[in-house]
């Protein structure tokens, strides 16, 4: 059964610093999703990574995928308060085309 693990689960950091969130998954997959959830809000799609070595960037966020290591990273550069949110990675299972398994989320809090 596919398991998706994120770490850290909680991250408090200062504005201006860099940090990385890690997402490991347990079975083969060549694609992965990152979502953002603001408190009390819905999930918003950030990145869809579709192949080994895929790298996508949007503003201060950059996501990458290493399918051999079954690892994705979400790197935050020069964090700003607006990036405070919970970030989820999610991986599709090949047992069902529609089913994706979410990680437990990383709650990111950025202090001024």
């Amino acid at each position: 059964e596919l398991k998706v693990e994120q770490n850290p689960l909680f991250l408090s950091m200062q504005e201006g610093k860099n940090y990385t969130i890690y997402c490991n998954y347990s079975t083969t997959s060549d694609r992965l999703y990152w979502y953002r959830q603001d408190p009390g809000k819905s999930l918003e799609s950030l990145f869809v990574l579709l192949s080994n070595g895929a790298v996508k960037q949007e503003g201060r966020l950059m996501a990458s995928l290493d399918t051999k290591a079954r690892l994705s990273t979400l790197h935050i550069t020069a964090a700003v308060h607006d990036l405070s949110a919970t970030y989820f990675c999610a991986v599709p299972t090949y047992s069902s085309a529609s089913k994706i398994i979410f990680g437990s989320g990383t709650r990111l809090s950025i202090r001024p």
Partner: protein
Amino acid sequence: DTAVSQTPKYLVTQMGNDKSIKCEQNLGHDTMYWYKQDSKKFLKIMFSYNNKELIINETVPNRFSPKSPDKAHLNLHINSLELGDSAVYFCASSVSGGIADTQYFGPGTRLTVL
């Protein structure tokens, strides 16, 4: 012009009651989903429909019954509500249900069972 909408946004009810949550998407997508997010933010799929047909039915108590009258709507009916049903329920949709498809989420319905 909301893409995926849910009603109600909040639902407070007593144990043992029956309630429904409605979901509509205007994206023209073929596949719709229901997810449950618990108090620890853990998100788990419950059901998925493709063009009105049930394709995913996770291990969910049969008190939960989804209904899809057409491909733009997926409703969730819950019988005999229990305290443990308290959670945020999200509806989502995707183009065709393929694994490359991004899922678009509704705003969520916060269900509180007293």
